[in-house]
């Protein structure tokens, strides 16, 4: 009896061990891609299934089968935690600017071999030499976006529209949404006051805090994702968010809601870029993948799916793409691309050191408690 039971147990253990080693040593060529959720054209609504298309294209071009393991993350911090645990290996990742700067400083990125990425020539000049990668050695920009103010034109007078002041206008008390995240919320106040958002002068941050405190009686609530439903339904009338996301809200706005969008004078920019982490196992393959993502068909499909602006000239110069988006959307998504690097390096968030981050978070908590 006991013997049989222990034999059974041993068999189960052995089985799981076999499974462990079996999975570890699969021979097929696989490329591990780690991207944001919902951040690639995936074949829905008759769009291009980018990953499948790449697998097919690779087999046709190189006569070898390849499998792309495509997984997603919810935030830069999640991705960073997973990579730095040392338990996983990815070949291509797509973090945001400030995280790229941090990973680069910590030696977590590999320099790219641009001879494998000839399509890099289509990346607009103004996306080169950005602060997180001044010599363009580690990154290929994937998308970018600009924060603007969204408002319901049925509630807000056109005369009040134009700057960050709208979010401090007491005429609209109880209609205003503010970011529920310290960096973004402070930035709205700092842009309004003309303070550098990356300053290490604590007095300036204190000034921004005071500005946020005068705003807080007017604020309906501090939100992140909830902004979609609150703006779409007309529950709130003013809020700041990314241009690409404004179109998602516009698509779903209720009757009697008339959402519009404008850029204040100073505002935040972000760039998400493709990089190769140091745990990469197929570097050349990863570069081929990055190059493929820059080619016309997948780049346009991704830009149409994600609805963020693309730094790729094959995309924003394409007639089909411009037609698909319409003139109005093009104007909002691509505002004055010419001096992008200048604006970006002046206004985009850069990584604060941990002492500053702690300080900002203390200020933020004091605002939320008050």
């Amino acid at each position, binding site marked *: 009896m006991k013997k049989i039971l222990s034999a059974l147990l041993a068999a189960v253990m052995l089985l799981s061990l076999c499974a462990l080693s079996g999975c570890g040593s699969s021979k097929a060529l696989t490329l591990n891609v780690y991207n944001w959720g919902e951040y690639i054209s995936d074949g829905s609504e008759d769009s291009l299934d980018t990953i499948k298309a790449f697998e097919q294209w690779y087999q046709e071009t190189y006569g070898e089968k390849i499998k792309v393991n495509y997984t997603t993350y919810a935030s830069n911090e999640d991705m960073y935690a997973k990579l730095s645990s040392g338990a996983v290996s990815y070949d291509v990742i797509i973090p945001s600017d400030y995280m790229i700067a941090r990973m680069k400083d910590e030696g977590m990125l590999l320099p790219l071999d641009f001879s494998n990425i000839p399509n890099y020539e289509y990346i607009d000049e103004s996306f080169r030499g950005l602060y997180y990668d001044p010599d363009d050695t580690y990154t290929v920009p994937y998308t970018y976006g600009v924060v603007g103010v969204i408002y319901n034109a049925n509630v807000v007078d056109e005369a009040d529209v134009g700057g960050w002041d709208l979010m401090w206008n007491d005429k609209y008390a109880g209609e205003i949404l503010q970011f529920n995240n310290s960096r973004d919320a402070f930035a709205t106040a700092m842009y309004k006051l003309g303070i550098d958002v990356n300053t290490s002068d604590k007095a300036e941050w204190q000034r921004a805090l005071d500005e946020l405190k005068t705003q807080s009686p007017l604020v309906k609530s501090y939100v992140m994702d909830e902004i979609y439903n609150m703006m779409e339904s007309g*529950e709130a009338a003013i809020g700041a968010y990314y241009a690409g996301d404004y179109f998602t809200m516009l*698509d*779903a706005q209720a*009757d009697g809601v008339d959402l519009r969008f404008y850029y204040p004078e100073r505002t935040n920019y972000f760039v998400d870029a493709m990089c190769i982490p140091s745990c990469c196992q197929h570097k050349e393959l990863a570069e081929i993948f990055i190059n493929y993502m820059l080619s016309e068909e997948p780049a346009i499909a991704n830009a149409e799916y994600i609805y963020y602006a693309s730094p790729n000239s094959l995309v924003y110069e394409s007639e089909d793409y411009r037609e698909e988006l319409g003139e109005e959307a093009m104007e909002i998504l691509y505002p004055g691309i010419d001096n992008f690097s200048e604006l970006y390096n002046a206004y985009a968030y850069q990584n604060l050191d941990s002492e500053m981050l702690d300080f900002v978070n203390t200020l933020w908590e004091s605002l939320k408690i008050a």
Partner: protein
Amino acid sequence: MRTASRIYTALVMIFLFAPIAILLVFSFNDSKSLSVFSEFSFRWYRELFRDSETLGAVRNTLVLAVSAALISTVMGTAAAVGIHKLKNRYLRAAMDTVTNIPMINPDIITGISLMLMFVFVGRLFGAATSLNFATMLIAHITFCLPYVILQVLPKLQQMDKSLPEAAMDLGCTPMRAFLKVEIPEILPGIVTGLIMAFTLSLDDFVISYFTAGNGFQTLPIRIYNMTKKTVTPKMYALATIIFFVILFLLLLSNLSDADTVQAVRTAREKRKTAKRG
């Protein structure tokens, strides 16, 4: 008093089922909005079946849940039998407590400690990546095991000890007595354990999140990761389908339960009349 209790019941029902009802209704909405119901359509169901990433995640989740449930049921039943057979009272109490630890431990601690262990062992053997399907499976078996043991052990204790003894008196080998007498006797416990293990594995997020490797992503993780943009209504459609499949299984199992009860009852009646006759 009576109306008060009715209102109370109604409130409980509303809080339990209103979220599911809303999800169900909006899965048929033609637009993306959660505030405006524009038009009835199957759009999101069509989109769902075209989304290979999500379907892959569903497949992963099912493969993981089924294998974790089966393995942990076999191991858990064996463990329960072993614990039951222990003669030493203190050793038995100790074993009971030890097997309960993974159940009492917060998920996040189980998740992190398992991840650290996998990374450590992986480094020891010089593997480039230490997390994969197998590590996730081990993690899921770990947290499912105590639930299986907890279901099977009481059934063993309730069982009449003389039953397997009688079987062996009548010439059964111990193995045969175990398979033919003990297993049928504790089967309800095993089945409940299996179902519990399956559902636990199916909706686990925290432990999976920490032990997920490169290419293996389960459905809860995929949905969580959609928060850069909004969660698409495809997920409402998927949740609706899952809800109805589970409802159907539940009805089926309840019906078969009712059948068994009925069958047992008629068998008993027959025996009684036979005795009298």
